[in-house]
């Protein structure tokens, strides 16, 4: 009886947590889409499909769905080196976007990680703040 009650309570708690988080995630994705349209879409295209050998796609790449710190670093510091992204190299230059606020970067990356066929955990402003601090320390 007692165990049943505890399980039920935990269930309620979890459901509560999810439904409390969900609108937050939704709002972040919505704000992120605006940031994407202003600062990223011109190069990576509206559906994240990119431009062959010029601007990489943002769908299911190891950067987008992988390590948060690496991903945040790309946006803050930009990228201009010959690296393989899902087996291809891209020749354009991505400028640093460190002028964006922590919240904006968190939102745009949360949007990217939940769009274009991607499914990955949200990025928080605190995540961005930490990476920004570690980059400026260098």
């Amino acid at each position, binding site marked *: 009886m007692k165990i049943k009650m505890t399980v039920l309570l935990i269930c309620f708690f979890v459901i509560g947590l999810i439904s409390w988080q969900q609108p937050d995630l939704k709002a972040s994705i919505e704000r992120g889409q605006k940031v994407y*349209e*202003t*600062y990223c*879409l*011109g*190069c990576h*295209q*509206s559906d994240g*499909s*990119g*431009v*062959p*050998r*010029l*601007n990489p*796609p943002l769908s299911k790449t190891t950067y987008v769905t992988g390590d948060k710190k690496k991903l945040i670093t790309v946006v803050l510091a930009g990228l*201009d080196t*010959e690296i393989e992204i899902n087996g291809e190299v891209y*020749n*354009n*230059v*991505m*400028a*640093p976007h460190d*002028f964006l606020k922590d919240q904006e970067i968190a939102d745009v990356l949360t949007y990217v990680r939940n769009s274009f066929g991607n499914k990955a955990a949200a990025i928080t402003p605190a995540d961005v703040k930490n990476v920004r601090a570690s980059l400026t320390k260098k």
Partner: protein
Amino acid sequence: MKSKFSLFLLMSLFLMHVSFAGDTTKLRKTVKVPDEVNGGITLPAGFNAVVVADTLGVARHIAVDANGDLYVKLGRVKGGGGIVRLRDKNGDGKADEIKTFGDFNGSGIAVKNNVLYATSDDAVFKYNIVNNEVVNQPEKIVQGLVNKRQHASKTITLDNAGNIYVNIGAPSNVCQTSDRQKGSMGMKPCPILDSAGGIWQFKTNVAGQSYNNGVRYATGLRNVVGLDWNSEVNELYATQHGRDMLFQWYPEMFNQQEGAVNPAEELFRLKPGADAGWPYCYFDIGKKQKMLNPEYGGDRTKVGECAEKVQSIVQFPGHLAPNAIVFYNGTAFPEKYRNGAFIAFHGSWNRAPEPQAGYFVVFVPMKNGSPTGEWEVFADNFAGAVKEPAKATYRPCGLAVGPDGALYVSDDQKGRIWKITYAR
């Protein structure tokens, strides 16, 4: 269109199957998958196309030898080879012999007097052709050219006096202090122009040349991908890719539609020493003149030094990406095409979220080296259903005219090559 066609095919197959159900030999004889009409592209009345070769990979520029052999430069080495030779032995237009060699990525290719020239992103190689076979012992005639990935492809053309012209694209958008950073101002003078952002002239018969032996033939050109020598007037012609990001960085000057069509893509006729104005100037398609770039204090009214720069002879809507130009020196096409220019537009990306455009081959009627009328679309429908860079079926990239007067077009999305002929 495509789905309708396949539906039609399926239905006819089904009907045939029903009517010949009892007679399998007949069925086998009747069912023959027809060639896609003109290899999927559209052409003016009287013209036809066949697919010379398919799925070659990143087929950048092409060149045809006097014997009809077609050479293709691959942007990405495939199966160990970065150059493909296509030979049509039975004269049906389709390659029946495919050879690959040259283990480097690149875009540029040219052939003349039994010598083949091909480029990597920092050098020009030369191969001798003996008894119709390439001797696979390349000699580096030019080396050490700027290669910083952005606009690194080196395209080439030859004149009739033993010179080769090499485009060295600027590794930059508009020479900002911080490249592609919104709000970063332009550097003046632009230090990039010393070693890039122009066309350099080298000798075809000297090995190991670099900047110290070459001549900066023309400057102020951001990134020229289309380059051809017009033998009618003995002058160099170049198609420039204009700058990106006018709307994205200056929405107060350019609305979204204006950003999609600005700046113009330009065709230049280049005399030695020409300065076309990059990075200080751009061609405003609405105002129909060369104006100061916003990174250099421009506001869509200031012209400044741009009045003194070399003016282009044809302007096209923005971002269409003119990747190749070839003068029509054949006689197989109707009279109006003689000495005019075909230009292959790779297709835009920097128009998003406005719809993308280009992905076609246009014709510019010309006489004595000057345009005689408006440009018109010649070959179209390369992209297929979706005109977007990653989703287009094909993207025209290279052009060449064969000894029989046929026009060849290459595609670097999948590697299809078309041969276009006129039937009258």
